[in-house]
C-alpha cells in the first residue's frame, strides 16, 4: 500500500516538469531504440542464414569446377573434376554420398510451339538422396536410365506449369536443345531462394545422357554434392577433399585451387562477415547512448535533489525514513528509465518497420528485445539513480529545512 502510494506520485512528479523528464529519457530512448533495431536485424539475418543453410543442406559440401570466387553453379564448359576425384572423395571416411552432376544454365526447352529456358542437370540416381528431393509424381532418374543413356527427364514445377498447366505431362516428349526427351516424373517443389533463384525451373536428365548426348562433356564432371554424416565433420572433410583434389590435379604448392568448395559454414561466414561490423557499430551506439543517458539522468537527479532539499527535509519532518526517501528517488529514476525504455522500444519498432520498407532487409522484433529493453532500462535506472537517491536520503532534516 505504502509502496503503491509512493509509486503513483512518481508520474505526477515527472509530469510536473515534462521537458526535463523528456530530456532525461532521451538517451535511454535512443539507446533502447538502437538496441531493438540491432536485435531485429540480427534476428532477421539469422532467419536468412537459417533459410539459406536449410536450402543448401547443413551437412553438404558442394564441389565446383574452376577456382576463383564463390558464385553460382559451375557449367559443363568449365568442368574439370574427374572420375578418379569422385572415387577418391567417396572413399574419404564419414562421407555418405557423393552425387556428381553436370549443369547447363538457360538451356532452350521446346514443347509443341511453346519455348522456355531452364537449368538442365545431368544426375545420377543418388542426386535425389543428396538433395533430399525426388519425384513427386512418376519416377526419378533410375540406374538403368544412366546405364542405357536413356533420353528421359524429370521436370520441375515451373517448367511443368509453363507447358502443361493442369494436365499430366508424364509420358509426353519435349525438346531440350535439339534432343527429344520423354518426361517420366515431376520434381518435388522447392520454391525460390531468398536471393530469388527459382529452384523449380529445372530439368533433370540421366548423367550419362547429359555428358555424352547433350552437353558434350564425356570426360569431366562439372559439380559434385558431397553429403557427410555429421555437420561437425564439415571442416575436416572439406580439408581432405581439398587435399585429394589438389593432389589429383597435380597442383604445385603455390598454385591456386582449380576447384571451389562451399559448405554451410562458409555461407554463414559470408553473410555474417558483412553484417558483423554494422552490428558492432550499432551495439556501440546503443551502449554509449545508455551510458550517456544514465549520466544525464544522474546529473539531473543530483540537481533535482539540491533543488528539492526543502521537500526532502519536510518529508523527513513528517515521518519519512531515510529508506523511504532513498526508495522515492530510486523509483523516480526507474520511472524515467522505464518510460524511456518503453518509448525507445516503440521508436525501435517504428525504425525496424521503416527499415524493412526502405531497404527490404528482413528484420524481426522479438519478445527477447522487449525483455532486454526492460532489463537495460531497469539496470541503467538503478545504477545511475542510486547515487542521487543516497544523497537525498542522507540529508539532515533540520539542515534541509533551513
Amino acid at each position, binding site marked *: *500500500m*505504502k509502496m503503491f*502510494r*509512493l509509486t503513483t*506520485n512518481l508520474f*505526477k512528479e515527472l509530469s*510536473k516538469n515534462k521537458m526535463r523528464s523528456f530530456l532525461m529519457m532521451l538517451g535511454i530512448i535512443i539507446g533502447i531504440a538502437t538496441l531493438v533495431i540491432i536485435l531485429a536485424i540480427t534476428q532477421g539475418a539469422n532467419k536468412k542464414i537459417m533459410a539459406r543453410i536449410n536450402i543448401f543442406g547443413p551437412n553438404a559440401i558442394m564441389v565446383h569446377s574452376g577456382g576463383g570466387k564463390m558464385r553460382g553453379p559451375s557449367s559443363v564448359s568449365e568442368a574439370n573434376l574427374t572420375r578418379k576425384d569422385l572415387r577418391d572423395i567417396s572413399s574419404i571416411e564419414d562421407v555418405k554420398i557423393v552425387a556428381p552432376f553436370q549443369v547447363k544454365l538457360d538451356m532452350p526447352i521446346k514443347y509443341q510451339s511453346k519455348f522456355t529456358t531452364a537449368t538442365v542437370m545431368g544426375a545420377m540416381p543418388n542426386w535425389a538422396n543428396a538433395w533430399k528431393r525426388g519425384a513427386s509424381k512418376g519416377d526419378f532418374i533410375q540406374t538403368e536410365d544412366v546405364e542405357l543413356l536413356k533420353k528421359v527427364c524429370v521436370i520441375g514445377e515451373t517448367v511443368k506449369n509453363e507447358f502443361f498447366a493442369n494436365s499430366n505431362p508424364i509420358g509426353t516428349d519435349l525438346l531440350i536443345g535439339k534432343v527429344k526427351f520423354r518426361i517420366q516424373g515431376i520434381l518435388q517443389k522447392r520454391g525460390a531462394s531468398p536471393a530469388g533463384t527459382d529452384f523449380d525451373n529445372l530439368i533433370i536428365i540421366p548423367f550419362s545422357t547429359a555428358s555424352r548426348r547433350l552437353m558434350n562433356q564425356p570426360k569431366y564432371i562439372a559439380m559434385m554434392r558431397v553429403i557427410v554424416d555429421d555437420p561437425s565433420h564439415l571442416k575436416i572433410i572439406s580439408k581432405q577433399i581439398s587435399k585429394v583434389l589438389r593432389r589429383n590435379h597435380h597442383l604445385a604448392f603455390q598454385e591456386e585451387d582449380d576447384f571451389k568448395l562451399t559448405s554451410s559454414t562458409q555461407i554463414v561466414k559470408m553473410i555474417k562477415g558483412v553484417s558483423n561490423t554494422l552490428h558492432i557499430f550499432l551495439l556501440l551506439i546503443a551502449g554509449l547512448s545508455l551510458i550517456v543517458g544514465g549520466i544525464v539522468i544522474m546529473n539531473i537527479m543530483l540537481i533535482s535533489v539540491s533543488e528539492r532539499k*526543502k*521537500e526532502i*527535509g*519536510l*518529508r*523527513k*519532518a*513528517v*515521518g*519519512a*525514513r*531515510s*529508506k*523511504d526517501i532513498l526508495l522515492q528517488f530510486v523509483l523516480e529514476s526507474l520511472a524515467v528509465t522505464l518510460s524511456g525504455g518503453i518509448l525507445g522500444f516503440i521508436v525501435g519498432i517504428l525504425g525496424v518497420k521503416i527499415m524493412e520498407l526502405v531497404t527490404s532487409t528482413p528484420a524481426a522484433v522479438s519478445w527477447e528485445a522487449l525483455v532486454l529493453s526492460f532489463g537495460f532500462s531497469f539496470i541503467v535506472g538503478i545504477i545511475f539513480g542510486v547515487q542521487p537517491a543516497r544523497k537525498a536520503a542522507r540529508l*539532515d*532534516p*533540520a539542515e534541509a*529545512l533551513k
Partner: protein
Amino acid sequence: MDKIIQAKAITKIYSKNGSITVKALQNVSLDIEKGEFTAIMGASGSGKSTLMNIIGCLARPTSGEYFLDGGNVNNLSDDDLAKIRNHKLGFVFQQFHLLPRTDALENVELPLLYSDRSDITKLAQQALEIVGLKDRIHHNPAELSGGQQQRVAIARALVNNPEIILADEPTGNLDSRAGLEVISVFQRLHAEGKTVILVTHSQEIAEHTNKIIYIKDGKITGDESVQKPLNARDELENLTKETEVTE
C-alpha cells in the same frame, strides 16, 4: 499533570569547518505539560530554532537528555525518530514548506503516506475542514493566500492526530490579519486539548499563549505564565470593526 516534554541539561554544539564551534544551546532544561500552549521566545540567533529542532526530534542534542511523552529519545535510531515525528508531532514552519504544484489535499495527505493509515483522503479532508479550507482542497499553493497556505500547513500538522504541534514563527511571513487567523487556529486546537509549542520573536504573538519561556544566547533566561492571554478571535473581530469604521 503529565509532563509531555522534559529536557534535561541539553547542550547543542555545531562545528563549522571543523575548527569553529558554535554553542547553540547551553545546559537548557525545560518541562512542558500536556495540553499546554507554550511560547518559546527569543531574538534571532538565540537558539530557539535549535531548541525546537531538538524538541521536534529533527536534531539530536550534543549532551543532555530529552524525554518525550515519558520516553528517552536519546537512544533511539533515526528510523524510530522518524516514526515519532510521524505519530506524535506536527510541524508548522515559517515558510509553510508546501509542495509546489501539488494541491492542498495531497499536501495534507503527505504525513499519512509514511504511516500505516489507509483512509488518507478522508483524514486529510477532515483536517482541512478543521482549518476552514474545505472549499479549497483542490487548489495548488500558488492559488492560495499566505494565510491559507499556512492553514494548509497546519492541517498537514494535524492530520496524524499528533500529541504536540510545533510551530516555528508561523506568522513570520503573514500580515497581521492572516497571522491572527493562524493564531486563532492554534488557540482552538489548544482548547481542544492539544499541546502547542510556538516559537516566536514577537512578544505580542507570545501573549496569546499561556506560558512564555524566554531564551537568549542559548540559555533559558526565565519563564512566566500569561495571566490573561489575548484572544485572537476577538482581535480579528475588532480588526474588522476598525476597518469598517475607517471606511
